[in-house]
């Protein structure tokens, strides 16, 4: 018994002792899962002698809860557009004038001054994309994919996949009905909700990342997906067999960006990290791994042929014409929640 107690005490002491005595600067970075080429972190550590503690989250909301409560001083985080807007409003971010960073010039003009951070005082874009239709060219007529109507077409009964995300699914319904996907009109929400409930008999399943497996194994013919995720399907299955499109009614355009949360004790080092991620060589290495669309226009010419061949990876302004960025709905999110519960329950 005594030996056991002693061992345990020793174990605990060891653990606490190792926690202190760090003279090296440590950056706490909080990012999405599998969303960076991790050798980049090692390269950064070697170049600047700054240790990187890398943590991952699965959704903006999880990240928000962890950051709001405190308990960990995150130095760099990678939230999405609407979450940045929310965090700015709640004074959770450090203002650091991103335009002054050396490598900010590599970010394309149309990706600066976005609605959630008009003066780029809080964020630098990291990766971006759209929400659209990923389809199997052998099972779906190509004329159909330019409209959201295809998801409500009897022709594809039992072969349709919807994305299990409240805002993305409601966005599809809103856009089909011709409304803004940031609508806070109860009548429009009711119509969107009813549309999705009626659609359910045609839908094979509401899925998340397993959409890739289902599309690649021909279980489904068409689905709603994030552009980057859909690109994985195109790259794996070949662009002869699979396609991605952004319907003409418009869709969602999303951005993940780097921010510095308030409470960070290493703001200068955090800026260094953000600047590092925007370097052309580093951004290129990252994009080749993650395979999502980059806002770093300086590397456009250097992208591999594989990435360049993907449709809608770098859409033109006309193709993005009716696309909107999500805006935080504020208190109206309660109505969204209620509608979503009803849609899922039916």
């Amino acid at each position, binding site marked *: 018994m005594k030996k056991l107690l002693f061992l345990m005490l020793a174990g605990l002491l060891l653990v606490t002792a190792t926690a202190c005595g760090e003279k090296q600067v440590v950056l706490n970075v909080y990012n999405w899962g599998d969303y960076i080429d991790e050798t980049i972190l090692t390269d950064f550590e070697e170049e600047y002698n700054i240790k990187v503690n*890398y943590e*991952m989250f699965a959704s903006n909301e999880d990240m928000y809860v962890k950051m709001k409560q405190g*308990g960990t001083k995150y130095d760099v985080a990678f939230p999405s557009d609407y979450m940045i807007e929310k965090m700015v409003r709640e004074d959770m971010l450090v203002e650091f004038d991103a335009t002054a960073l050396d490598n900010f010039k590599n970010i394309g003009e149309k990706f600066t001054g976005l609605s959630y951070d008009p003066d780029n005082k809080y964020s630098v874009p990291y990766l971006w994309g759209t929400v659209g239709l990923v389809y199997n060219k052998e099972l779906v007529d190509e004329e159909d994919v330019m409209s959201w109507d295809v998801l409500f077409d009897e022709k594809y009964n039992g072969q349709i996949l919807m994305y299990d995300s409240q805002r993305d699914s409601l966005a599809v319904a809103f856009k089909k009905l011709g409304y803004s996907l940031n609508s806070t009109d109860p009548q429009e929400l009711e119509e969107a909700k009813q549309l999705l409930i009626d659609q359910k008999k045609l839908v094979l399943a509401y899925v998340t990342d397993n959409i890739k497996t289902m599309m690649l194994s021909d279980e489904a013919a068409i689905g709603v997906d994030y552009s980057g995720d859909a690109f994985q399907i195109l790259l794996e299955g070949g662009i002869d067999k699979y396609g991605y499109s952004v319907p003409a009614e418009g869709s969602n355009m999303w951005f993940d960006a780097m921010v510095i949360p308030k409470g960070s004790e290493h703001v200068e080092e955090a800026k260094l990290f953000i600047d590092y991620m925007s370097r052309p060589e580093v951004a290129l290495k990252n994009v080749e791994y993650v395979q999502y669309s980059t806002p770093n226009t300086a590397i456009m010419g250097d992208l591999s042929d594989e990435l360049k061949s993907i449709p809608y990876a770098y859409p033109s302004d006309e193709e993005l014409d009716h696309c909107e960025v999500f805006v935080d709905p504020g208190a109206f999110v309660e109505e969204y929640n209620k509608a979503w519960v009803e849609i899922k329950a039916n």
Partner: protein
Amino acid sequence: MVNSFRSILGSVFKNIYTVLIFTFLYLPIVVLIVYSFNASKYAVGWDGFTLEWYVKLFQDRAIMKAFYYTISVAVLSTLIATVVGTFAAIGIHNMKPLRKQLILNINNLPLLNPDIVTGVSMMVLFVFFKAQLGFITMLIAHVTFNIPYVILSVLPKLRQMPKDILEAAMDLGATPWYAFRKVIIPEISPGIVTGALIAFTMSIDDFVISFFTTGNGVSNLSIYVYSMARRGINPKINALSTLMFVSVLILLLVVNKRQGKESKKIL
């Protein structure tokens, strides 16, 4: 004739049923292991045999770190919870009925509470005490939800124990400590072992409570796997799961063999 036909049919049916149950339990694990050797990143079709995911697994510092924390928190929290839980169970066993019932009800709270309630409330508690979230806070949280399992495993064994055994031992000249060590512990040891195993499993498996009570770069495998939700599960996880499964399998075979040898010795 009819009887033996019935018994043959019965045993055939029993065998088929057993096979089905085991298939249902183990087929997903077999598929997981098979796909850890699949050259394709997505579990679609067989693309060729490869060990690349195993190689990539050991190169991935984040997974290795998460694995280290998972195991160390599991082992430490099991040890602490088992010790605390065993003593608690002995104390509870000897309480008067009213107090006993009250303590048992409190004991059930971590079990009945949804994980998210436990997780968020512990996080709020830690932040209130201005503690930095990390290894220690995660460990404390794991110990907290493990102790009830140990108590509930040890108590039945204590009830089964003859009431006067402790007195009998001391009558024969044993000191209370000696009696505790040599008489009580062996009697309840199956309960302690069961409690420890359950605690270990619950700790390795836990996601929600760990997510909310950790920070500063400390992560565990469940958090790591869950965070891949948006991008899809990388086969490196398949490789790690295969290795863990094989380790546990070997461990169990070794333990069983030793127990078999011991019982043969007794005979």
